[in-house]
């Protein structure tokens, strides 16, 4: 795998990450926000694998496994919370939870 190829993969990872980021910041639906974080995980995973491949060792892949683990854990907890929040305020809007302002 050449450096040029690496740069391509990194580009794709970066684009995915950026889009996830923008989504996280603009969308006001809690679930979509978490989805965007998952998207960011995705972007990072691509980079990791690309570097793993470029350096020719398996650390990248091992790390992606851990990323997946984290993503899974996070997803489960986050969605549990979202459900709770939804039950409390009957809305998924992020703005409903502004009590910590000021």
């Amino acid at each position, binding site marked *: 795998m050449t450096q040029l190829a690496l740069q391509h993969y990194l580009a794709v990872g970066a684009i995915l990450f950026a889009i996830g*980021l923008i989504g996280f*910041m*603009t969308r*006001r639906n809690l679930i979509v926000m978490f989805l965007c974080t998952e998207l960011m995980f995705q972007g990072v995973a691509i980079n990791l694998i690309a570097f793993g491949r470029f350096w020719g060792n398996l650390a990248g892949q091992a790390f992606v496994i851990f990323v997946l683990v984290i993503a899974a854990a996070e997803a489960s907890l986050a969605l549990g919370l979202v459900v709770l929040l939804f039950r409390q305020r009957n809305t998924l809007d*992020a703005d409903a939870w*502004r009590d*910590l*302002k*000021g």
Partner: protein
Amino acid sequence: MQDLWQIQYSYLIPLLPLLGACIAGFFGARWLKGQSHWPIWIGVGASAVISISLLFSMLGLWKVAGHEKGASAGHAAAQRSVAAEAASEEPPLAYNKIFFHWITAGDPSGTNSSKFFNADAGFLFDPLTAVMLCVVTGIGFVITVFSAGYMKGEEGYFRFFAYLGLFIFAMTCLVMGNNLVMLYLGWEGVGLCSYLLIGYYYEKPSAREAAKKAFLVNRVGDFNFGLGIMLSFLAFGTITFFSGTPQHTGLLEVAQAPLTAFQQHALRWIPFLLMFGAFGKSAQFPLHVWLPDAMEGPTPVSALIHAATMVTAGVYMIARCGTLFVGNAAAMNTIAAIGCFTALMAGTIALRQFDLKKVFAYSTVSQLGFMFVAVGCLAPVAGVFHLVTHAFFKALLFLSCGVVMHAMAGELDMRKFSGLKRVLPKTRILMLIGCAALAGFPLITSGFYSKDEIVAAAWEKSRFLAALMLFAAFLTAYYSFRLYFRVFEGPEILPSPPENAHGPGHGHGQADGHDAESAHATGHHHNHEPWIMIGPLVVLAIGAIFAGFLNFPERARSLGGFLGQSPSFAQSFNVATRPNVANGRVIPPLPFGQIAAQEELELADKDFATSQHSLHRMLMIVSGLISLLGIYFAYLMHLKDRTAAERLANDFPAVTSALEHKYWIDEIYQNGIVEPLRALGRGFFAMDRIVVDGIVWLISFVPQASGFALKLTTQRGYLQGYAVTMLFGIAVILLVVFL
């Protein structure tokens, strides 16, 4: 001279009165009560005895030394010796007794810029000191005896005598001090005692204010005096008058030696500063306002402090530091001018005063003016002579006033009573003697001789000055006999028996606080003239009459001659006769007490001698006539028909109101200086609160305000808002790092 026992034990002179004061002060309240005058009597009496014996032994020494010198004087005709040579052979009658170093500062080695300041607790004994000591302790003792009778029954009896003892201690320190700081110690000490004694009746607000005023006005004088001391130390490096060491490193000796530029410049300022200090203490023109108000104190206080002793401290200081003053013509002229102006001003004000003690207060201010004129016209002997005679007759007058007040139940207003010669026969005679002496009744009273010498000295300086002094003498004669005729002569009117006896401070003006006590005087046949009060008066009367002959024959054995032996007088005469100072004028040595120089001068040119004698005789006649004229005028206006004075007063309403309001000087000071300073103080205090605290408050307010502002704008609670900010931060960092 140093082996005289009085000098060895001279520390007793100030110490005994102090001891007496402490005993009276601390133990008077409970144990001594009525008897608390004894410790003072003993203390002051003992110091009086020591002082008088010191004076006589000094006289003895002077006579012995005088003979050899007299013989040698004959053949050493051309003895117009230069100052240094004259000062070299130690005049026998001056001795520096140092007990211990009071204040020493600075490094003794005196390297680089820092100097070595040393003030000793030491006494200087010379004829001037001896004379002053006798006056202070002598008259002091007489007055303590009088006041034992006068103050009997007072509630703060012991307190009065404690203060009196303290005063004698301070005054003796002042007179005997051998350096400027000891002089300053006495200076402020007497200021303190006058504050305490004027404020004796502290219940009365007027007494309280008068005491405060006295101390503060004195303090203004002392401020200048202090600056004078410091400037002289800066210039000459020492403040001891006479070092007693052969190389003559005393202040007054160094002042005569060749001076550097800075010293000459300093010598232009030092006399003015010291002089202004003297004006403060001796109540001369700018700072005289406190003396009339000082009459709030009990009468013996007025007699002792505000007539005889304290107020003369200024004259003593100028006589002592003669060498600093004489060289500076401008200073001498100002002293003479201020003295003359004060004499006239006080004389005129006294014309329209109806309160007995106020009249004599202004008369004291006027007579002090006379003394300053004498000192200003290169005649310190005349000044000291008048000081001595004035002490006698003024004390006599004040104490007789006290007797009158005692009898009239604290009433002091002339208009309330007259014709008391039947009620107070003895006091009448004594008052007459006193008034005659004050007026300068020719030939028999001391006042005549001393005043005449001052007029002669004034004549030497300038004809106009002498004329003004004669007019002042006329005024003195007039108001003294105005008082006498209104009080003792004429129809007998007695003040109505005091009905509201017990109100403290009742009656107009500053009726004496102790009227409550005298109110219980039963009827009029009570003997108002107990011997304990009249005895001292008689002694003073004798002094008033015979003191004049101390210096009349004006020859070797007179007061002048004796004073001439003092190094101050001798050296100031040398400085005066220096070519650059006298610039051609012949300085008569007699007013400096230099008898030898006088005789030798008279031998030299005959016509000078004759002119001097004829001048003296003529002036004596003139001043005698002036005083008789004054007395006759007073007789016309106040005995023949009392209304004449009132009519005259109404003719010139503007003048009378000016006199009655004491030329509004008090008001000028109050509104011109005191009120603005208080306003400034209030302004500073307001500034203090607003400006400084304002800044502090601002410093504390700014962070709070900005914190609140931030809270409102950025912390809105949006999760995504925070995310965007974070992201923005990351972007910037990356940009910075990688660009």
